[in-house]
């Protein structure tokens, strides 16, 4: 006999997906269409407070803040996706090889991993950029390298756990090669933890990109980016607070969305 009781919904995942989806859509639209031109200045409407014509107001050059947030968050998403992809792909390969084969290569690579993890990531990113020079691509490269260890660790531990399991042994007995075992047999088992890690990774990437641009090392002017806008808004914080509020709130909501997705994914895993 079955008595139905209230089923719990995964609200974290639902709200997280909605938030992220909304901002991703906004960013996507912002690449092709914005209410005003992103870079054109209008000396007649400088520092206009939020009104019907400019819902988020305008900045000190008279540029529409809504348009710049829409376009700038596109850059933020682009950098975040590229860094996470780079970290995930390289991290997976490194983690799979070291975890599956073990031995001294594993020891060396994991110690390098530990060294990377023991420094604050922004500090390391600054170090990389001081070598590579500022710019969007270089920020992606620097952050991508920093993201490798966290993914490598997840995949490695899953490889170590799975390679002792009977289904892997039975594949070995059949004569399946080691690379096929790693990437076709074991890797799908890491999917949920990888997705969770990716969501957290997006978070860190958004924050890191914002801080890089805030420090003037990321996206170069006049192109907008959420971090850059925050840094420019700093000097006008008391006179025109809306300049800082729009990009700040956008960053917070994007991060909140990703956090809720990763939380929700963890519940799915359980």
């Amino acid at each position: 006999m079955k008595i139905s009781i209230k089923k719990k919904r995964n609200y974290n995942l639902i709200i997280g997906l909605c938030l992220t989806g909304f901002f991703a859509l906004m960013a996507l639209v912002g690449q092709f269409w914005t209410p005003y031109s992103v870079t054109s200045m209008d000396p007649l409407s400088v520092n206009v407070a939020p009104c019907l014509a400019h819902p988020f107001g305008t900045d000190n050059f008279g540029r529409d803040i809504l348009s710049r947030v829409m376009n700038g968050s596109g850059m933020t998403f682009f950098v975040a996706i590229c860094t996470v992809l780079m970290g995930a792909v390289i991290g997976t390969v490194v983690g799979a090889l070291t975890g599956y084969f073990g031995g001294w290569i594993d020891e060396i690579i994991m110690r390098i991993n530990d060294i990377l993890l023991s420094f604050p990531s922004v500090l390391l990113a600054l170090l990389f950029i001081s070598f590579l020079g500022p710019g969007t691509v270089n920020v992606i490269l620097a952050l991508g390298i920093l993201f490798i260890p966290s993914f490598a660790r997840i995949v490695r531990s899953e490889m170590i756990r799975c390679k002792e399991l009977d289904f892997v042994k039975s594949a070995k007995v059949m004569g399946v090669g080691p690379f096929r075992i790693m990437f076709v047999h074991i890797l799908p088992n890491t999917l949920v933890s990888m997705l969770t890690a990716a969501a957290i990774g997006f978070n860190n990437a958004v924050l890191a990109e914002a801080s890089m641009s805030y420090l003037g090392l990321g996206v170069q002017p006049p192109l907008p980016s959420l971090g850059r806008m925050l840094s420019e808004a700093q000097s006008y914080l008391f006179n025109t607070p809306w300049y800082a509020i729009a990009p700040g709130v956008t960053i917070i909501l994007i991060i909140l969305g990703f956090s809720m997705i990763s939380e929700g994914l963890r519940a799915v895993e359980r």
Partner: protein
Amino acid sequence: MGMLFDVSHLTIGFEDKGQMNKVVNDLSFSMDEGEILGVVGESGSGKSMTALAAMGLLSPQAHILDGTIMFDGKDMLALSEKERSAISGKDMSMIFQEPMTSLNPVMKIGKQVGESLRLHTSLSKEQIHEKVIRALSDVGLSDPEGLCKKYPHELSGGMRQRVMIAQAMVCSPKLLIADEPTTALDVIVQGQILKLLRKLHRERGVAILFISHDLNVIREICQNVIVMYNGDIVERGKVLDVLEHPKHEYTKTLVASIPDNTTADRKRRPIVTMEHLNVFYRDHEGGFFNKSGRQQVIKELNLQVYEGELMGIVGESGCGKSTLAKTIVGLNTDYNGTLKMDEDLHPQMVFQDPFGSLNPARRIGWIMSEPLRVRGIRTKRERRNMVCDMLTKIGLDSSFYDRYPHELSGGQRQRVSIGAALLMNSRLLVADEPVSALDVTVQSQILELLLDIHKKGGLTILFISHDLNIVRHICHRVAVIYLGQIVELAPVDEIYKNPCHPYTQMLFESALSGNDSRTAHFAPDDIGADIEDTVIGDTGCPFYPRCKYRTQRCEAQAPDFVNVGADQEHFVRCFFEGKITLEKNELHNGDMHII
């Protein structure tokens, strides 16, 4: 005798994915003081739930929907948490299935056993210590003083189970709930633990609620039995009545025998030949700072497996039988000596744990197609057809193609494993305890499937097991392994009629015979002591430390593997060459009676 424990109209529901499933349905039974009541049923039949409910240990998803549990005149379900904990652990205690996880790993044995005395009595430290020592020696543990200072990981599985029983008995409870207490143990240790429980029952008069899925165990120890199926009691009564004359359909299938193998061993062409095989096992991989540990597991092994035979390999856990299996299928390459096999043999393996042997992230169809992809069958359609054919052959159907392993039961998963091995065109199947993780009724189905494919396809099967009953019924030849050496090798009937090695005899004695003359079992009060782990010595018979018949010669010199059979091959590694069986023969008059 007065009534001690009474369960009436107990109904327990379990919350799963928003649904409330009834796992125990209107259950009523009662126990007198000093009674041993068996509860038998498959996993999921609700037998453990009942015990957990009595102890107040149900998981938060489980809800008691109706009924009462009376213990010693008190309603256990109406008591407050505090009142209940005053009873459980003192007047009512429980031993669990898993000796590896049921003890606290960071607490010394002495403290752990004395814990309930500290909680429930006002005894002084010295008195508690004294009681703990007595409890430990009562359960047959030698050197209880030294043991008190040890941690659980320093003990073997059998010793831990004894410690757990001592822990449960230290407060002299009136009721002991034993939830599958011997399932995780070896045959020999299992026999000893059952004898120990019987001794405690006789001496202390403790009532025991004995939960098991194993009818042999129930028959051995219980007076009355209830049979549970899907949360209902389907049959109850005296053990012998129920097991000899089962009335309910389910009990009948439970009692039904293990399928018999009738095919004769035809050809004598060896397909696997092992000569002077030494196999090593690496404890851990070496790194920068630790060297890899290498142990010899198999020593100088000579064995031939003939085409089309069912060869049984028997021994305790840790004797090397699984390592041998892995070596044959190529999972362990660290060996020397000869290991020759036919080129197109493709030995495949069926593992013990049906939940680890299928990739949880892939569908059944994908898993079963993998051997075909390895064989180079390129077209998807062809693969699908072959897999679907195989699914029907192994007693499933093509609807399983798109399912995930977690949707399948243990028996179904084991079928899929067997099917995947067959799709590899394997001529030798190495089955490492393929049914020991399954329920009794499912066991016989899987064995039937193995026998079926053996007969139809002439498949050779190497059947590794610790269950002597099953080996006797389905195998042609049996090799008994002790510490990495074959100590006895003979056709199955011969070895069961005339076991020559003392170790084989010991295995058979501890195997539960199901003998009807119950009094005979009470006579030997040998609850056994735990033997230190023995390692392969350089000189002398490896079985020397445990042997009843040992002489000085056995210590100094290792016996050869000699043929003692009259008209058929019967090899034994013992100086007595089987002559000791004459004195011990009466033990085997009852024969291995299978229920």
